[in-house]
């Protein structure tokens, strides 16, 4: 775990029902909506090609509505013939979702809308119905695990030092929309309070897993739990329990405070968009030298040098290196 300014890529998974999405080559900024769509309920299957007397492969040619479009009940979806026309109409308001191999059509009612926001400033490098991928340059800190949806906000220091815990009393609505750096630990009480106050996300050296279970449920694991629900976003930098941040990690937080930042939960990374330079040598993090499953509280400076050279962590390749 160390700060690196590189060109990175970030995948943004899309739910089913995408309506529009950013196209390859498009320039986007972190926080921009890169895809929008509809949340769909149980779909109805409507006979298509058979009803029109077509082969399934010919149905597409006769479709009057593009797959993925919103329709209202009675909309003609496909039609053939002039003197004796035959047509397929939408039985309900909803979305023309899918055309089967048999030439049948699925129409699903729309129950909600969703949007997906970019977590990087950069260029769309892949865009399809499942994923929008963005490549861009940013300061990046790779964490151990992340929980909740992606978050976008202004980076704000919530503690006075790398070994301080974020007290619940320091969270209030003035921090709404920000990503708060919580030092060594954020407790279970802080997470829902921050969410209730509109805080975009929390970043800490470690998080007690019992607190994570309270917020995200008993099925939560150490590998993180990215999601799309309206839940708090927590980035756990070094492990679980309490973990004082190394100076090499904490000091850049102070230098970058106030900058725009995002948390990409699927890859457990913090991106910060700032032109500031962080002139510090990279220091191996404590989790590289930890020998047992003890909490991650000990700073690297307290460990023998010989131990500090042990272990090896696979460093992530930046996008430009691909």
């Amino acid at each position, binding site marked *: 775990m160390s700060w690196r300014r590189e060109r990175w890529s970030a995948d943004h998974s899309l739910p*089913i029902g995408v309506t529009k999405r950013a196209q390859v080559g498009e320039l986007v900024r972190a926080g921009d909506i890169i895809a929008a769509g509809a949340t769909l309920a149980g779909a109805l299957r409507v006979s298509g090609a058979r009803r029109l007397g077509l082969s399934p492969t010919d149905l597409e040619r006769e479709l009057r509505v593009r797959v993925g479009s919103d329709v209202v009940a009675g909309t003609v979806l496909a039609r053939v013939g002039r003197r004796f026309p035959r047509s397929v109409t939408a039985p309900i308001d909803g979305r023309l979702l899918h055309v089967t191999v048999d030439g049948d059509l699925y129409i699903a009612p729309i129950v909600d809308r969703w949007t997906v926001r970019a977590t990087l400033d950069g260029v769309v490098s892949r865009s399809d*119905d499942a994923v929008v991928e963005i490549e861009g340059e940013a300061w990046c800190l790779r964490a151990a695990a992340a929980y909740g949806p992606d978050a976008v906000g202004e980076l704000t220091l919530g503690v006075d030092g790398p070994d301080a815990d974020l007290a619940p009393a320091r969270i209030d609505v003035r921090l709404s929309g920000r990503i708060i750096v919580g030092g060594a630990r954020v407790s279970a009480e802080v997470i829902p309070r921050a969410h209730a106050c509109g805080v975009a996300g929390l970043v800490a050296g470690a998080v007690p897993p019992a607190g994570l279970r309270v917020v995200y449920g008993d099925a939560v694991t*150490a590998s993180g739990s990215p999601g799309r629900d309206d839940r708090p976003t927590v980035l756990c930098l070094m492990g679980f329990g309490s973990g004082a941040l190394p100076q090499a990690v904490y000091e850049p937080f102070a230098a970058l405070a106030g900058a725009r930042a995002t948390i990409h939960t699927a890859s457990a990374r913090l991106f910060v968009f700032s032109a500031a330079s962080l002139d510090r040598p990279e220091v191996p993090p404590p989790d590289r030298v930890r020998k047992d499953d003890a909490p991650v509280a000990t700073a690297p400076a307290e460990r023998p040098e010989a131990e500090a050279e042990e272990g090896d962590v696979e460093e992530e390749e930046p996008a430009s290196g691909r």
Partner: protein
Amino acid sequence: MTVSIGTEVPVERTSVALGRSLRVALLHGREEASRLAVLRVALASGAEIVARVRATEPRSFVEAAQALRDAKPDVVVIQGGTKDQGTLAELLEALRLGCGAQRPMPRVFALVDTGVAHALRPRADPFAFERFAAAPEMVEALRDLRRAANEDVVLRDVLIEDAARALATTNGTAALAVDVTERSTSLVLAHPEGRIEAAHRVPLGLGMGADHVVVRASLDNVRRWLPSPIDAPALLERVFNRPRRLVEGPPTSEPAVLLEMALAREAIAHALRDAADAALDVAAMRAAPSILVTGRVASFPRSGQSLLVLVDGLEPNAVTTVFREPDEGRAERIGMVVSVPGRRPAKIRIVRASGRSVARVAPGSFGLVEIGADVEVAVSGAGVRGHGRSGELGLLIDARGRPLSLPERDGERVPAVARWHTALHATGADGRSG
């Protein structure tokens, strides 16, 4: 890893790996046989099950498609009869909607007859569709994917199966291999004629799979095996930090060993539960006359620790000779387990070359009988009959009953568990074995 191919032959050195993680989604027909077929394939191939959908499940088309998209499967295994053709076709449409844009695309492996395959193949477009006539062929194909086209990789589960088969052939009886690693737990029952039943459960282990053990078993069920009190949040922290441990090899401190022992018991118990869910012969696994323990459980510093984890996790119910084979060592016979059923006091006659003796067994008792290292022993008594070799620890008489139940209250449970640890020399500060 060093692996022996029998108990009496020299070891040979082999390069072994777990292979790449393979995510499979299971789509099956309405019949129970169909569910069992896909489940057995998944368990036998060592793949991670990321989604299960029954053809008649009351799940909407959109929900099924979203579940498959979120699962990001590498392979979709389908099984069903002619009656399921329509519903399986609809599930394949959900797959097309959910995973059509996934890169690389999932492959569809079908365990169906040719007629059903002919009907389903066009509906699987644009995914690669392969039909398999029998489950073993599909298991082999899935393993090939885990090898990632690297023929030099010897999959660990294949090796464990070979070891179980070799033990069964050597002893002429059914043999069970129990393997627990960082992220997998395997149970392989081998019969002397070469037939095997295997459940390789991923992710369920002591390192990367440790948090999954807690999710499945619950924290309290892991904690109940510890011989000293520990508060739940502290235990959870230790478990959650295990996947991030970067130093390989067996644990060194006693608390770490005790935690691994607790996790291993639950991992074995849950692998056994999955085997039962797939209708594998769990009764035969528990009654196997020979059991080989490998992986992390075999690498505990003391033999008694390996034996205790096995009897608590597996709950054998017959007379069993137990071997252990650490990843970097030779197989050794560590003890003979005599499980005494019933809730009344019993007598067990123990016959060996140097004479015979009688052991009086009280219900709930649990302890070793000093009988001399590695001697041929025959035992008989109320509901107990069998023979084997004692191994370095001797004879373990387990009269705690089946299923094994632990006291609910900490005040009763902790002393009981501590007593069991002491009985097998599983705690303390002396040497590596015994």
